[in-house]
């Protein structure tokens, strides 16, 4: 499916957020690309992981009007049991179109470069006046590099600032060819130890670190970010290992993200076997992590 999407040079996004003010400078439109190579246990956009469309049924919103059941050409929906027969469903989306409650939803919408540009241009005047722009987020936006190769030059033609939020897990060449079009990169590090990294994200971190090393050798502006996950990556060992890693690369700054567990409220309607982590942000712990990094000589910033 993904390769097909790329052939047609369309992107699959699961959300477009306008007036986004926490994903880069100024007022921004954040594009959430669908599909990611990692499966982080704390991923705050669990609906972004799979790189294909998904049909979800939000039982909490359903009023059992059965409009969808009647409309489904494949008879794949059973509202009595609130189940979808995914073997029959071909993701045609008719159920989502007719559902009055937004209870049937297709996650993932396709965009051509032009249609996405049109959406971005709607808020151009606000980017211009706040020194904002667009942010590529996800999921992992870089996995849809073929699309971006067409899309980003169009964006730059309009002099729009581009920020990328990336987890760094993909072949370097995917990112490399896009670098001229990206003004600022938020590059995420999660856990320094490769095995631990695999435990929590499903993949080792070698590729991520290799890509980061490559990035430090370019002229691109970037900022390392780390989500502080209580008990998981705020340990003394991980902080020290991360500092070493950054020292080796000559990086002096890190931005720490506070953990938020809102994603757990999405789990009930998503397929797959994600489990809640049952962790909570803890201000004291967060401050201690900030202090730990500072003690090792890094400049730490974070959102208040």
């Amino acid at each position, binding site marked *: 499916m993904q390769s097909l999407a790329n052939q047609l040079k369309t992107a699959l996004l699961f959300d477009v957020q*306008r*007036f*986004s*003010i*926490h994903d*880069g*400078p*100024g*007022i921004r439109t954040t594009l959430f690309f669908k599909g990611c190579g990692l499966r982080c246990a704390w991923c705050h956009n669990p609906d972004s992981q799979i790189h294909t469309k998904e049909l979800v049924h939000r039982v909490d919103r359903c*009023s059992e*009007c059965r*409009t969808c059941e009647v409309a489904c050409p494949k008879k794949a929906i059973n509202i009595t049991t609130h189940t979808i027969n995914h073997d029959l469903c071909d993701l045609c989306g008719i159920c989502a*179109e007719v*559902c*009055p*409650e*937004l209870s049937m939803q297709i996650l993932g919408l396709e965009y051509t470069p032009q249609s996405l540009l049109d959406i971005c241009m*709607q*808020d151009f*005047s*606000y*980017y*211009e*006046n*706040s*020194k*904002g722009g667009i942010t590529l987020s996800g999921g992992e936006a870089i996995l849809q590099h073929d699309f971006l190769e067409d899309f980003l030059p169009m964006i730059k033609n309009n002099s729009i*600032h581009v920020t990328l939020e990336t987890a760094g897990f993909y072949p370097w060449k995917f990112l490399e060819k896009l670098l001229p079009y990206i003004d*600022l990169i938020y590059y995420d590090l999660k856990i320094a130890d490769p095995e631990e990294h695999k435990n929590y994200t499903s993949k080792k971190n070698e590729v991520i670190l290799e890509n980061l090393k490559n990035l*430090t*050798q*370019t*002229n*691109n*502006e*970037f*900022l390392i970010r780390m989500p502080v996950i209580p008990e998981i990556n705020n340990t003394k060992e991980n902080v020290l290992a991360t500092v070493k890693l950054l020292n080796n690369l*000559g*990086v*002096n*700054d890190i*931005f720490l993200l506070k953990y938020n567990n809102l994603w757990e409220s999405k789990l009930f309607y998503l397929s797959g076997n994600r489990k809640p982590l049952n962790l909570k942000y803890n201000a004291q712990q967060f401050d201690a992590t900030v202090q730990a990094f*500072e003690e090792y000589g890094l*400049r*730490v*910033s*974070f*959102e*208040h």
Partner: protein
Amino acid sequence: MNPTTLIDKSNSKISNTNAILKNDLKALPKDQNFAEIYNSLQNLIPSIRLKNIRNSLIDAKYEICIEKARYMTEYFKKISKVGFFQKLIEKIHYIVYKKSVVKISKDIYQKKWQIKLNRKLISYYRRKENNSKGQIQIDFANAFKYTLEKVPIKIFSDELIVGNLSSKRIGAPLHPDLGALMLLPEIEEISSRSRNPISINKEELESLKNDIFPFWFSRSILANMNLYMKNPETFNMLMNGSLFVLTQFSGISHLTPNYPEVLHLGIRGIMEKAENKRKFILDQKDAKSEEIQESLNFLESIKISCEAVILYANRWQKYLIETAQSETNEVRKIELEKMAEIVKRVPEHPAKTFQEALQSIMLTHAAVHYESFQHGVSFGRLDQYLYPYFKKDLDSGELTIEKAVELLGCFFAKAAELLPLFFDKATDYFSGLSSASGTTIGGVEEDGKTSVNELSFLVLKAYDQLRLRQPNFHARIHESTPTLFRTYCMEIIKKGGGMPALFNDEKIIESQIQHHVAKKDATNYSIVGCSEWGSPYNSFPAAGAIFINIASTIPLLFKSLRNVNGLNFSSLPQPITTIHDFKDLQVAVWDMLKELISIALDGNDAIETSHANHRPTPFLSAIVDGCINNAKEVNDGGAIYNPTGCQATGLADLADSLYAIEQLVFLEKKLTLEELNGIVANNFSGNETLRKYILNRIPKYGENDLKVDEIASWVAEIFCNEVKKKKNSRGGYYSPGFWTMTTHQGFGKRQGALPSGRMSGDSLANGVSPKNGWDKKGPTATMNSIASLDGNLISNGYVLNQKLSPNFVKGDFGNQIMLGLIDGFFSKGGMQVQFNIIDPEVLIDAKKNPDQYKDLVVRISGYSAYFNDLTESMKDEIIERTMHCSCG
């Protein structure tokens, strides 16, 4: 390699992105001129005097003032020559009329024959009196003088600027000569009514019932307007309040007097102007004609009313000297003596100092309010015309920045002493008790240079120290506006309270010029009341005269949706029976709107004519440019500009309803129009699924959906064009606007369900904003929808309420976001925006514990109000507005 090394700990306090942003910004315009004032204001120690004044105003109870009513009645009774027979008829008439007012308050309307009989009687009284316009002007000038000779005057502790807008600390003057009779059914319970109780003592109550109301019921505007109503049914439609509201039967409203001229010439100078005009007329050949006699009478009435104001100032002087004599505190004694000296000079003579200038305006402003009920009397471009006085005193060492802020604060506090007195039903439409005195700062000169000066900053600072609900502060923003001034505005806005509101100079000036305003006057525009832009000092814009519920047009089209509600709709087009496509529907809506506008405007014409013929305001005429020159009273078209404001309420509701019908009936063909109407008539009961579908699946105005926005633009266009076609009785054009005060709640309460999915009785959308909570795509989408309306059509203002969570706008980064939103919106053609930045939790708590939040100020429409003064449903609306921060 170039990592973002800029970020250090100090910047990280705000946000990392801010650091990057700073690096990214182009060099800002130089603000050297204002850096000094900005910095000195940041470090200014708050004035204890202002704090004391603020506290005393917040703690004051609301009281009715009947002094003006009493003295005016006394005077007119003295000169009245009513014979025994007429007295008898009037007595009987009053007994019957009282009953019908009580019935009206219960939505039981007058029969046609009752209206006709009433009109016959009033017409009989007027014929009997046989007074010419000029004589009436002189009578009212004398009554004004009689009043100002007698009204109580009082200085309150700590004040440096005197003048009482009413006789109480916070007072609501009652105007029986206008529409106060509508209070009759509730006057006994007014101190204990659930909404906005206002106290009145027993003696005053008796005087009202036995003396004042029985005299004025047949002489007031409420009575006289019936003489000029083309359609007797209009009176009932007005009282019913579901289709339109006409405000001017309660008093003329919304203008900016020529206070700068009062400062330059003094009242005596204005009298001389009138005298010169009189001589000039007398020199004309046919000086004896009746028309010329009327002009001479008018100029005589100006002279009398100006003398009255000078007399009033003299009373103040005497009073202040006496107060100073008995004052034991030496410091205060000196202050009082100085104030006595000041009122000896002003407003009679030209002002020479900053304090004199402020005092001159305030005494004049007080006099204006004793002449008549005038809602929204505004100060114009205060920072511009006060600047020479400020600068001179500052340079001579007479004045310091601290003192100037304190004086401005003392001045503004006076504007918060006045309350409009609404009868209970009117409270639905004008909740928040705003007296709507607009104060405009900033802006641009004709040569494109910024008008911002140090005083523009000081005005904001004075407001910041007071944070009272009045006056309304408006900032004009132009490309040339210094960044530091913009930043200062953001800092003040972010503290909550919704002020200043922001106006887009480029677009508003362009739009004014398109509406036949001279470029010089358009560039000099200021805001009257809530958001009505126009030329100050030389206009009588009656900006708040009319509000029309345009969402009602759809229900009026269909038999099944016409809510009779005790009304006879014979003057409106019959319900339609055949509609084949969307075009048909649009044509029908257009026709209905045309009729509705026509009826409302005819009603307003009747009211304005009755003001001109029966309730002139000579003093106001003296201080509105054009009246003396034209030798014509201000209600009679004497001003240079004479528009009348006509507002549409429910723009979003009508656009959303039209689009929902187009989608459901004509495009998706989900159901027939008849079926849809049936469901809407039943308030969607049993069809919640359809309502949800409409709400969730059909785009709404405010979501930046091109198709809905196009319909909204069409609605705005036909409304504006229909309104602008008509001329009022003063010879000016009607002027369309989209600001609603709280009429969206008043109309909404009486409006059945709509195809937009809005349920029966729910509020309509406010101002030019989308329906509350239906703007799910965030502020940029909302602003784009609004910017897509053709601003050049809108000559009487609009209001966009934008809510932002306090979290989003913290620190310098927050300023940048807000300025980005504002500049982005304005560069797309947006004209006005105001922000409510407040945590919804605070409001929820305030609703539960009103006593702990006496001073909580929130933004309503084009004005701010104490949260506690709002109706319960308006409180809920404000909470809801702040809850839906679908952004970030």
